[in-house]
């Protein structure tokens, strides 16, 4: 229920649905953005619930659909859901670690109408890749999957999560991406949510590392031919002075549904002290337009000072609610990444702290410690 009336005509419908089918994953990356408290398999939405969600989202005008997780391939009904989505006219994206993507499944998914596969790597060599994901032979499997993705004519996006441990080998990442024939390559410096926030002190690259990597990518771009991969470099906002326009504005464009059916305006919002609605209990239409949590940070009226009087508020909407909450303890505050925020010193302190981690580095579930010396230069 909303506290203030929202005129439906002025609220955009979602364009993007992220369906997090399961949090379960064969890998245990320490930078995983999944919540530290993960839903168990038995509490996951069933096939019919997911089909209902897809139909309702499409009816509202959503057109991009991401099947994600965890590892969505662990859901045996993935092909059924892809077929349903495809019939509805979605552009379907599979966001996968590649583990478990056999030729049989890649063929089945093609027949079901899957449009695109995004394959993630933990590093550009077997030793580091397998160590970071905590699974032996996973690099080999990913290479085989990349070949199959091409063979079955899917557009292929490669995703490399960059951290202090692997960012210095960006050259190898660029070379591997070209060799595999990715259409787009995301070089995504990890953002600090979920497990990545827990491990932030170990993961955050130094400013110098980041600048070198970015310069390397820029130089490489200038030498590239027409048919080579398009590289997209994502910097962590900790080194910025303006926050990102998180989710293009709260509840304007993106809708995430988590494994247990919670509907969120962004995939990490579950950590906020808000009660989020569940798709098992309500229609997406009702959730999107009427739920308190979706209206809470919609638009600009709720903005705190200094955003309220800032002429950049239409650019970033005050930044990320989760980041404000994680760093200041108050989700209503200006994102501390902004140097106009009175809390900006918290970001600077986090950067300083990351030079001397006091906690250990943990794998995502099970909570095992990683022998850091093995993955640091």
């Amino acid at each position, binding site marked *: 229920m909303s506290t203030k009336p929202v005129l439906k005509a002025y609220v955009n419908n979602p364009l993007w649905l992220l369906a997090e089918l399961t949090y379960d994953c064969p890998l245990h990356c320490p930078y995983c953005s999944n919540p530290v408290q993960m839903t168990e398999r038995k509490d996951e939405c069933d096939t019919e619930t997911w089909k209902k969600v897809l139909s309702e989202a499409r009816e509202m005008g959503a057109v991009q659909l991401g099947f994600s997780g965890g590892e969505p391939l662990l859901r045996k009904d993935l092909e059924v859901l892809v077929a349903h989505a495809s019939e509805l006219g979605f552009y379907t994206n599979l966001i996968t670690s590649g583990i478990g993507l056999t030729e049989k499944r890649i063929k089945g998914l093609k027949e079901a109408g899957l449009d695109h596969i*995004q394959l993630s790597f933990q590093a550009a060599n077997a030793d580091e890749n397998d160590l970071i994901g905590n699974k032996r032979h996973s690099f080999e499997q990913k290479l085989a999957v990349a070949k199959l993705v091409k063979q079955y004519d899917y557009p292929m996006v490669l995703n490399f999560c960059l951290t202090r441990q692997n960012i210095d080998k960006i050259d190898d990442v660029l070379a591997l991406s070209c060799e595999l024939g990715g259409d787009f390559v995301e070089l995504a410096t990890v953002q600090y949510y979920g497990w990545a926030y827990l491990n932030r002190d170990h993961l955050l690259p130094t400013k110098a590392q980041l600048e070198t990597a970015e310069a390397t990518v820029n130089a490489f771009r200038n030498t590239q031919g027409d048919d080579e991969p398009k590289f997209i470099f994502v910097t962590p906002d900790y080194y910025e002075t303006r926050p990102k326009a998180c989710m293009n504005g709260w509840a304007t464009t993106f809708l995430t549904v988590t494994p247990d059916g919670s509907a969120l305006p962004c995939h990490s919002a579950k950590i906020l002290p808000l009660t989020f609605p569940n798709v098992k209990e309500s229609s997406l239409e009702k959730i999107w337009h009427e739920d308190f949590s979706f209206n809470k940070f919609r638009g600009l009226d709720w903005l705190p000072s200094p955003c309220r009087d800032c002429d950049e508020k239409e650019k970033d909407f005050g930044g990320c609610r989760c980041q404000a909450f994680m760093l200041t303890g108050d989700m209503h505050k200006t994102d501390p990444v902004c140097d106009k925020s009175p809390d900006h010193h918290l970001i600077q302190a986090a950067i300083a702290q990351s030079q001397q981690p006091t906690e250990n580095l943990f794998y995502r579930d099970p909570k095992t410690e990683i022998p850091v010396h093995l993955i640091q230069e």
Partner: protein
Amino acid sequence: MATPKLNPLYKFQFEKAQDAFVLLYPEGMITLNGSAGEIMQMVNGERDVDTIISDLIAKFPGAEGIDKDIHEFLDHAHEKKWIKYVD
């Protein structure tokens, strides 16, 4: 004569919510305006540019300077890699 076809990286469809033709690609969407949508509908890997022009003139007999618009859009689409030329 050159024959354009859709780059397989893109999917072209009509979106009711946008009331427009769109090009979809991994995690993104380009919304086309009315005339761009009409031209893209003609791009099928079989019609060459001249045929596209004559078919569109037949469809919109009153439209002036339509061939210039078509060339301009196709150039733009090619530069953006939305389309490729078959030969």
